[in-house]
């Protein structure tokens, strides 16, 4: 094994893109005692959870605004509370994952376009308060009719409407920047998937938030959610169809624990969407469909997260593609 053109004289690795070859036979490669070249991500499951809650918040805000504009008050309330709940959980998870949680505000020292985490911090900083105002405005009917609080009661709806629309304007950025957050790393399976991840996450966010809406909103108002779940599923499936076909670095999306989570996500997404479409007359079926959609989003996020960790831990995913690239450029390696 003096170079990566293996001993039987021809290249053993199939190239990505042909769609047929999902499993790639192991290529010969050198490593330092099998040790990883990269440092696997130190992010805990907090970050996988955040991928889910952040997407849920974004989807909730969009649903809230859509319901607000089309006059579906109960659905609007559900959307807004989903957004606030999601963004609150997100903030907690993000701060909790830090090595120094007491220094979370150091993120606010700078704004850097080259750091998706910095961009994301500012997106969250904009989204959080807007989602909060929109949700709290829903409490207006609880206030007394008269006095100062009566004034607040009358002011709350328009303020909430403005905040709700503004939150919805930021929401798509919140749901999709996380794709860049993962891709802008040296982690092979995340980086190579950069064209797909934002679409997978956008679709998954819509599916999850539609799921919550199907569970919590009255059936008379959920017609748009059925269409939205279908749209989200389509975006996720079409955007994600290339994940396993990336060649060697697509392997973790198809195999092992991470592969099983991705598959589970897709099955749940298909089942949930199908159930949602026929759930108009059954409250129970709608709730089941909603639960499947939410679960699908969780599975997909954890699956993508895990796939990246797997690809960083095995030197194969780092060395083989780089060696192939190098050999294409310079001809096969010279070994003494």
């Amino acid at each position, binding site marked *: 094994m003096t170079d990566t053109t293996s001993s039987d004289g021809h290249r053993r690795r199939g190239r990505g893109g042909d769609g047929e070859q999902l499993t790639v036979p192991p290529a010969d490669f050198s490593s330092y005692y099998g040790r990883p070249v990269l440092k696997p991500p130190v992010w805990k499951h907090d970050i996988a959870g955040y991928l889910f809650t952040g997407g849920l918040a974004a989807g909730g805000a969009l649903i809230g605004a859509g319901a607000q504009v089309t006059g579906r008050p109960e659905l609007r309330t559900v959307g807004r509370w989903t957004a606030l709940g999601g963004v609150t959980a997100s903030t907690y998870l993000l701060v909790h994952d*830090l090595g120094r949680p007491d220094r979370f505000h150091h993120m606010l020292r700078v704004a850097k376009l080259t750091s998706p985490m910095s961009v994301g911090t500012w997106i969250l900083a904009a989204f959080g308060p807007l989602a909060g105002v929109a949700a709290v405005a829903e409490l207006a009917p609880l206030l007394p009719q008269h006095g100062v609080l009566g004034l607040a009661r009358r002011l709350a709806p328009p303020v909430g409407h403005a905040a709700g629309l503004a939150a919805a304007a930021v929401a798509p950025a919140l749901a999709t920047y996380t794709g860049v957050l993962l891709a802008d790393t040296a982690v092979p399976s995340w980086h190579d998937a950069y064209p797909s991840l934002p679409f997978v996450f956008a679709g998954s966010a819509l599916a999850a938030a539609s799921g919550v809406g199907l569970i919590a909103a009255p059936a008379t108002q959920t017609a748009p959610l059925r269409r939205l779940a279908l749209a989200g599923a389509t975006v996720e499936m079409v955007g994600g169809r290339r994940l396993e076909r990336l060649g060697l670095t697509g392997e973790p999306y198809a195999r092992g624990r991470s592969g099983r989570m991705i598959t589970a996500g897709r099955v749940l997404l298909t089942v949930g969407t199908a159930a949602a479409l026929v759930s108009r007359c059954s409250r129970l079926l709608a709730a089941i469909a909603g639960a499947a959609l939410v679960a699908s989003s969780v599975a997909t996020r954890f699956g993508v997260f895990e796939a990246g960790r797997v690809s960083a831990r095995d030197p194969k995913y780092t060395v083989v593609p780089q060696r192939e690239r190098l050999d294409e450029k310079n001809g096969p390696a010279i070994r003494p």
Partner: protein
Amino acid sequence: MPHANALYGPLDPAPDAGYVDAPPRMGFFTDTSVCIGCKACEVACKEWNLVPESGLDLLGMSYDNTGALTANSWRHVAFVEQPRSTGQEIPAFEGQPDGPSVSPATAAVGARTSSDTGTDPGLPPGSPAAATRMSAGPEFLGMPGAQPPGRGSGAQGRTDFRWLMMSDVCKHCTHAACLDVCPTGSLFRTEFGTVVVQEDICNGCGYCISACPYGVIDQRKGDGRAWKCTLCYDRLGAGMTPACAQACPTESIQYGPLEELRERAAARVETLHERGVPEARLYGEDPNDGVGGDAAFFLLLDEPEVYGLPPDPIVTTRDLPAMWKRAGLAAMTMAAVTVVAFLGRRP
């Protein structure tokens, strides 16, 4: 106006970071052909920089028990035994029967070991499959025998072999992914063109750790922050040589202005080629490579991956504009399908 090569391609990083009249870019040239694996660099670095102890376990894979660069080991001496000659014209055991000194099974066990370095992810176990795959071929890499070749096994069993040793360190990349992605501005570019973590700023988000294409930077447990080589920023400021280069007894680690080091390295490769060591090659010296060249570069005697280095790293931020474009497209799709879903007719 950012430089056209701000994310990728040749660049002088200190002026690009805004320094006026920056001193020349400084770096390390690590010539592994004269490294004797004494680990004086590891020790000197720990002493000067007050780096905590990083575990005293034996890893059982070679004479390298540090294992990797971590937050608690800013220099790491890699050690590799290979059953072939050191590059002399006449190999020491030419004509003698030879073969691998240790079985693939041993290599697989070695890959699974770990040591508590006090850092995260520190020194995670490797892939036994990868270790076995290598040792099964003629290019065996594994735990060296405890005795000189032939003493235990008799002449029939002895092998021709060489030892590769390399002192690894942060590369202080021209395009440093760690610095690009740091959301707090803790990682910064010094006037010498090096890359340094500010320990009073870092909040331990861990982004730099996933971004580094060389697996250098790491998080210290308990402390929570990211740590790595500073190229002895404090010593540089005082006009002194970094501790590791100062301590290296064979001048395997050379410190100086990068331009000068590059010339010296090219001359050294030429000399080695003349002396019959055709496998000598430079790693990380090319300003046109995927990270715009490293300020800490190496002379190697085998492929980079044999030493645990990525063969052709590319800074992840090269593709960042394309990534933001995809995210923008996905965001617009998301907004559009929501509008369509709500515009549909009422049931």
